[in-house]
């Protein structure tokens, strides 16, 4: 029996979850060790470091980049990433004249195999409501201001395609290895609310 602190109520999601899982286990419908394995995958194994490797590879290998932009699913699969909520991938490239940013206004669709599970802000009402209608104000909140000459292109994930932004490779990184380059690629740059780092954070 789990410990319940404070004053738990029938509506408490922790209580409801415990009730639901215990009933499903007793009925033989779910297996706890299988569920534990799913949690481990998404908490510890699948995350934005996957996407960063895809981006770094694209930065150093023009043929891979071309494949990535033509068929995102197959190119990403070359690096071993695929599956649930990333079955049909589209990679969109940032250039000096186009800045891409991804949202799912209707729910929270997000490319799990390359970025892991989405952060709370991505799923929140303010982001979903505002990024399609006032993207520059949203980007400014994330510390990114773009000149008027750049087209801000917002992709609303309304169907089952999942989008990943290929950020611009920062200046002065010509001598970096692929592994070093991957460290510059943040989750936020692959959603499009920021650019890649120009040097790794300490």
């Amino acid at each position: 029996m789990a410990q319940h602190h404070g004053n738990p109520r029938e509506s408490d999601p922790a209580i409801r979850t415990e009730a639901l899982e215990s009933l499903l286990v007793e009925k033989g419908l779910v297996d706890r060790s299988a569920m534990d394995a799913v949690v481990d995958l998404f908490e510890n194994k699948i995350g934005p470091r996957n996407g960063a490797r895809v981006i770094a590879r694209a930065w150093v290998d023009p043929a891979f980049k071309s494949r990535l932009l033509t068929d995102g699913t197959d190119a990403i699969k070359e690096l071993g990433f695929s599956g649930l909520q990333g079955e049909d991938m589209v990679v969109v490239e940032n250039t000096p004249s186009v800045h891409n940013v991804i949202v799912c206004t209707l729910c929270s669709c997000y490319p799990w195999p390359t970025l892991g599970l989405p952060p709370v802000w991505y799923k929140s009402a303010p982001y979903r409501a505002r990024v399609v209608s006032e993207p520059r104000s949203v980007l400014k909140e994330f510390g990114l201001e773009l000149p008027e000459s750049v087209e801000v292109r917002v992709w609303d994930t309304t169907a089952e395609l999942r989008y990943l932004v290929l950020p611009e490779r920062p200046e002065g990184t010509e001598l970096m290895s692929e592994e070093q380059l991957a460290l510059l690629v943040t989750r936020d740059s692959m959603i499009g609310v920021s650019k890649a780092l120009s040097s790794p954070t300490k």
Partner: protein
Amino acid sequence: MNGIHDLGGMHGFGLIKSEKNEPVFHADWERRVMALFPATFLFAGYTVDEFRHCIENMGAAGYLESSYYEHWLHVYEEILDKRGFVTRAEMDKRIAEILNGEK
């Protein structure tokens, strides 16, 4: 449906709050709710489309006031009850047992 979930372009939500170094899960129950998705998807016979529509129907106030994984929990409770896998009565009984320290 023209529900509350259809947020694109709406006004009045204010600034975007983002947490630095946010953990993947904020509570243990969120871990279990997330894992219940593949676990229930494979036997309960629902589609992601039905899943989403169930959330769209949870009521505007509830939708905005509850957290993301509470939306998923709502779906499991609805869909599993509707299909007879776990009824509301069974859930109410088990919740009472947990609160009484019997389970």
